[in-house]
């Protein structure tokens, strides 16, 4: 069921259904990708075994509006960064996550892997995978690779090495390093193992996250309230994107500096 026209869009906006979030601390890395949900209020549990996520998961923003015959549709956002510095919000459906990996060994790790079977976007096309730091790792820069199953079901694919560790590249809680796929791949169905090239100097804790991006939202006014909608404001690429009714909608960010943030992502059935 699509929105028939502009009036239908306005009617959906007037439902004013926001899925809310609040951060407990200034979160994010300068000019790098990070997962905002690690500082959501209330604090989510640190993942261990890989589990498939849905709208009831503790890293999901909510509540999501109920969906009948239509699709859950992103209409806009109202977000309040607490300080000076722009934010690029990435709204994503987080498909599964795990934990228990450490950053001080250079051997293949399979703790809590393979990742749980996808329950949405099951082909893996367009599904991204990343390594999330949930307890700070060391300050020695290194790289990691993942062994994964691609969108065609081919197991044993090895990602290109991705940098991690060090304060410049990222070692703090919330650091999120998406993998670089092997030649020809367009997505990930599952991750089987992670291998660091060298120790970062501190074990910390890391986990694997599979996610499907839905939209990007610009919060470029550096501070204060941002109101973004799909038609009039601009800065919302992926506007009116539709996602699964049981999606685990959550937030990553690419930021200028770490930020406190509160806000809502506006959704409706369409």
């Amino acid at each position, binding site marked *: 069921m*699509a*929105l*028939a*026209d*502009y*009036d*239908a*869009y306005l009617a959906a906006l007037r439902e004013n259904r926001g899925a809310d979030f609040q951060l407990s601390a200034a979160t994010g890395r*300068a*000019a*790098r*990708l990070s997962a905002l949900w690690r500082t959501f209020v209330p604090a989510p549990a640190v993942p261990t075994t890989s589990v498939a996520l849905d709208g009831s998961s503790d890293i999901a923003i909510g509540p999501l509006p109920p969906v009948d015959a239509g*699709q859950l*549709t992103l209409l806009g956002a109202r977000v309040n960064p607490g300080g000076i*510095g*722009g*934010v*690029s919000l*990435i709204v994503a459906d987080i498909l599964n996550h795990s934990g228990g990996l450490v950053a001080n060994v250079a051997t293949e790790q399979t703790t809590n892997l393979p990742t749980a079977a996808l329950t949405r976007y099951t082909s893996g096309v*367009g599904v*991204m995978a990343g390594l999330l730091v949930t307890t700070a790792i060391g300050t020695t820069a290194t790289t990691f690779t993942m062994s994964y199953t691609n969108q065609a079901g081919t197991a044993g694919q090895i990602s*290109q*090495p*991705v*940098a991690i560790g060090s304060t410049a590249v990222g070692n703090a809680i919330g650091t999120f390093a*998406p*993998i*670089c*796929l*092997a*030649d*020809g*791949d*367009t997505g990930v169905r599952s991750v089987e193992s992670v291998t660091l090239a060298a120790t970062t100097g501190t074990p910390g804790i890391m986990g694997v996250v599979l996610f499907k*991006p*839905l*939209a*990007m*939202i*610009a*919060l*470029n006014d550096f501070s204060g309230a941002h109101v973004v909608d*799909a*038609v*009039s404001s*601009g*800065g*919302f*690429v*992926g*506007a*009116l*994107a*539709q996602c699964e009714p049981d999606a685990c909608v959550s937030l990553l960010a*690419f*930021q*200028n*500096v770490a930020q406190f943030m509160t806000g809502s992502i506006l959704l409706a059935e*369409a």
Partner: protein
Amino acid sequence: MAAITDLSDLINRQTGGNSGSPENIFFHKVGRVAGAAATALVAVRSASLWRYDGMPAGGAVPTVAAIPDRTTQGALPFTAPGGSREKWLIGAAIASQVAGVYLLYDRLFHIGGLSGTSTADQTVQGSPASPALTRNTGGAGNMAWYEIYTAIGATGTTLTMTYTNQAGTAAKTSTINIGATGFNAISRAQRIPLAAGDTGIRAIEKVKLTASTATAGNFGITIAQPLAWIPVGAAGVMGWRDYTTGLPGIPAVHPDACLALMFVPSAVTAPEFFGSLAFVEA
């Protein structure tokens, strides 16, 4: 093919009505090539991101003259439109570790394997052109640049390009500097200006260096159709284009387009970035 009639039609198509088949693609890239740290960029001079690792994987160094398309490794993948519909780009966004300006373009043609020491004619497409362009074949708006895949020498010289312009006039020539610091490193992509009065390129017959740069290296020639300039004003801040409300209106994307990125950085850091393109069909 049908036009997007008005805002209501666009909203309807974006939410799946009227065969709009909305598609939002996402990509991320890191400052690495084939698993190793990428060569530092030259501030405020353009760089090709064709080979950068990420999702999708980086492109290969071209060898023979070729027409890349949306299935070529390195292209930002999208779904070809169905029926007789066209694909329309309605938005673009990039959040980047480094401020600068990104160019989204359709990579119409590329060739590698050219030498930085040869002063002989080096064939690009030859005459008649082979392979000839298969997209934007009229040439209007097409641009060309030399793209360095392996560092060439530190001796500056001049590259002369012989091409056919947008009017079909062959044997047009233009020149650009090549070699020397700032113009010889891996990933540098230096646009080649056109002769006075020309507004595009249908084919490039050959290039020729006036003198050796002192190192052969490996450079190539790329013909591109620019689609979107995406300025990123500060590190970490999202640059975006909304073609629903912004100029130049909603651009059509060829069903086989090889979408790729060039970057004019504000600093030398090889960037990490995350981006998105939004499409509908009509």
